[in-house]
């Protein structure tokens, strides 16, 4: 059987990669995708714990995370489109004022 | 790209889209420039001339008889209508009466041509909107008609069968048999197409209310033929200014008041039925007699006469080497071609070649209505509208 720590290690690596991308990338869409990556890393941990603790609750949390991610993607991407329409850029360094 | 639309300042988000000249549903080489806002056509421009062959210039360098073969190539779906228009104009110039047999055969063949042309229209219109089978059914029927033309004139498409003063040759014996068979069978086939399209909800969705043109607009923009009648104007040259003894035939002029793609579709379908009626009357009442007028200085003598009499030989020689001399003057003769008013404006300076022969091509005028139909509508409707005005680019560009 796969040891729990190995699954968690994968989760951590993915999370850290996502975090690094979040910090390093300049394209707002890529940054957004890094957030999704981090969410997924967390999901993996939930599933792993659910498997090793023998309860379904972890899976339900994943369920909710997916729903939240969907909502977040919808709104976030709509904001990106609105931003792009007004500023004509996707670089977050140029998106530094609160005004649209 | 010579013709293009300029961007309007402040409307930079609009897309300028080029459609054609090799788009499959432009029925030839028509190029459209569309300005789109989202999916809606805001402005449109058409660019033609890709098939321009300078027929009108060529007419001036050919004798009247030689010109007839050129007319075939303008509206290549209705060559006999073009032949008829040219011959009628010349005959008007010459004040030449042609015998009733020739007139009856002319009427019969031009009505068959109308059916043939409408069949091609129906098929290509249907395939533009995705109904593939109708296209092939229509071409199956067209094949029968082409065979009839070949039997009579020796050519399937470029018939050049009518001559100034009558017909080129007598039609072969028994040529009416296949016509009778066609007349018997065609109504069933027509019903079959109607079953596939007329009440089909998808077909209705695509055509009803699309490409509307009001009666006033249609007249002002110069629409003619079935497209004009689809807008509710009851005008048919065969009825209102009869030529080639159309006044002796009974038929109705179908009109619809809606002025949309569906109305034009229904009008053309009904026209096929009326044409069939005329053909039937022409078969039944076909008079006996010569098919060429008795005017030796204009009409070629029979082969027999040419070989046995000195006058025949001289007339033949004169006509072949020089042609005939119409009087000085100008005439305009319009006929109802399958697409609308096909007019020949003929100016003679007394020489055997036309001084000027201008063709009022119905497709050329009808194409102007396209902008009115598509502006403000979705881009997908453009295809339906092009199909519904039934243009032939050979005729548009001449």
């Amino acid at each position, binding site marked *: 059987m796969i040891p729990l720590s190995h699954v968690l290690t994968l989760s951590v690596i993915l999370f850290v990669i996502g975090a690094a991308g979040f910090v390093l990338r300049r394209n707002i869409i890529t940054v957004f995708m890094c957030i999704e990556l981090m969410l997924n890393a967390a999901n993996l941990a939930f599933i792993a714990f659910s498997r090793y603790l023998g309860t379904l609750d972890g899976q339900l949390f994943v369920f909710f995370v997916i729903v939240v991610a969907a909502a977040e993607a919808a709104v976030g991407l709509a904001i990106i489109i609105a931003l792009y329409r007004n500023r004509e850029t996707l670089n977050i360094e140029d998106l530094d004022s609160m005004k649209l | 790209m010579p013709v293009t639309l300029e961007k309007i300042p402040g409307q930079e988000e609009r*897309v300028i*889209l080029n459609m054609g000249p090799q788009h499959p549903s432009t029925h030839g080489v028509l190029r459209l420039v569309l300005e789109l806002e989202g*999916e809606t056509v805001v402005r449109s421009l058409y660019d033609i001339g890709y098939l321009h062959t300078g027929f009108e210039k060529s007419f001036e360098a050919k004798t009247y008889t030689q010109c007839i073969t050129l007319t075939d190539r303008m509206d290549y779906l209705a060559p006999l209508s073009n032949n008829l228009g040219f011959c009628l104009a010349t005959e008007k110039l010459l004040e030449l009466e042609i015998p009733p047999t020739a007139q009856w055969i002319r009427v019969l063949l031009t009505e068959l041509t109308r059916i043939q042309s409408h069949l091609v229209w129906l098929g290509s219109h*249907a395939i533009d*909107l*995705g*109904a*593939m*089978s109708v296209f*092939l*059914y229509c071409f*199956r029927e067209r094949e029968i008609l082409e065979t009839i033309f070949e039997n009579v004139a020796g050519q399937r498409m470029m018939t050049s069968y009518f001559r100034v003063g009558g017909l080129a040759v007598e039609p072969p014996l028994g040529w009416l048999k296949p016509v009778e068979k066609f007349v018997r069978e065609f109504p069933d086939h027509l019903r079959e197409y109607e079953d*596939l*399209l007329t009440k*089909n909800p*998808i*077909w209705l*969705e*695509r055509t009803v209310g699309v490409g509307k043109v009001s009666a006033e607009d249609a007249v002002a923009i110069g629409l003619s033929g079935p497209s004009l009648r689809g807008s509710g104007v009851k005008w048919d040259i065969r009825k209102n200014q009869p030529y080639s003894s159309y006044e002796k035939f009974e038929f109705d002029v179908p009109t619809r008041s809606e002025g949309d793609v569906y109305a034009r579709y229904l009008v053309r379908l009904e026209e096929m039925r009326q044409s069939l009626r005329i053909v039937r009357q022409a078969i039944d009442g076909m008079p006996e007699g010569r098919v060429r007028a008795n005017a030796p200085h204009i009409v070629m003598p029979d082969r027999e006469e040419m070989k046995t009499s000195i006058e025949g030989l001289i007339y033949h020689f004169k006509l072949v080497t020089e042609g005939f001399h119409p009087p000085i003057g100008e005439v305009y003769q319009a006929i109802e071609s399958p697409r609308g008013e096909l007019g020949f404006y003929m100016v003679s300076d007394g020489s055997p070649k036309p001084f000027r022969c201008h063709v009022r091509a119905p497709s050329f005028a009808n194409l102007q209505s396209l902008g009115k139909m598509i502006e403000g509508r*979705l881009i*997908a*409707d453009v295809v339906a509208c092009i199909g519904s005005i039934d243009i032939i680019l050979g005729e548009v560009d001449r």
Partner: protein
Amino acid sequence: MATLSDTELFLLVTMIKIAVVMFVLMTTVAYLSWLERKVVAHIQSRWGPYLVGPHGLLQPLADGVKFLFKEDIVPLEVDRVVYWLAPFLSFALAFLSIAVIPFGGTFTIQGRTFNFQITDVNVGLLFIFAVTSLGVYSIVLAGWSANSKYSFFGGLRSSAQMISYETAMGLAVVGTLMIAGTLSLRGIVDGQSGTWVIGTFNTYLPRWNIFVQPVGFFVYLTAAVAETNRIPFDLPEGEAEYSNMVTVSCLATLLFFGGWHGPLFGPGWLRMLLPIFWFCLKVFCFLFFYIWMRGTLPRFRYDQLMSFGWKFLLPLGLLNVLATSFVVAWLSA
């Protein structure tokens, strides 16, 4: 023949199953194009392919050879990776979904029972939906990678179409699921064996879901036609549609037409193989229906297509779900 261990036997049988299914699917897809051309041709009073082999039966082979030797034109400025990936993806997904489709009952080798199915997943139906939902990428990427305004618009539109109709398709099968109470395709089919018995009266109607879920079936069928981009929803065109057609036809058979259930008779081996025959027959009927439609109907306009999906099919599917849930609750109470 030496006796094999259980694992070996399992592996062997699975490999054979995969090979057979792949072979059958590939030939079906190839010959579906032949069938389509032939049937549409006969509808349109033509001959269709008839030169290569008897009745043109070798035409798909000839086409394949032609494709192999055809010059592959890659337009300038295209995104190479994506340009190659997109069609590959679409085929791979189409084959993937066939893995969970059961096409017959069971058979026994050395005392072990096997399914006529590559693998039985207990969420088989969801699996198919998952795979088809990835099919959007192949279209949108293909449209994008060609680096042309027109193909990009085409890709966007057809992917929007697929997404819209996927929703309706999902709703359409929910009714069936509620009746079956399982997501396993095998389970759904097993629930449809026998005949409908009302009280003590045997109607001799097979217990297929179509009789209790006609609305669901209608919505499913329409959505499936749109999902596979067939006429009258054929705004984009593609070859992979053939394998998708097979998948949705299989699914329709499984969900609404009792899968492999049909009259059984004859000796044992016949009883084992007849279900497969019934299954294939039903799937074939659906495929024929598809082709038939292509020969008959005109095409929708894009906005009409979208409003049809969202304003008609989706509410209809929802109502169907609602009604079914009430009936199921009332019956179980």
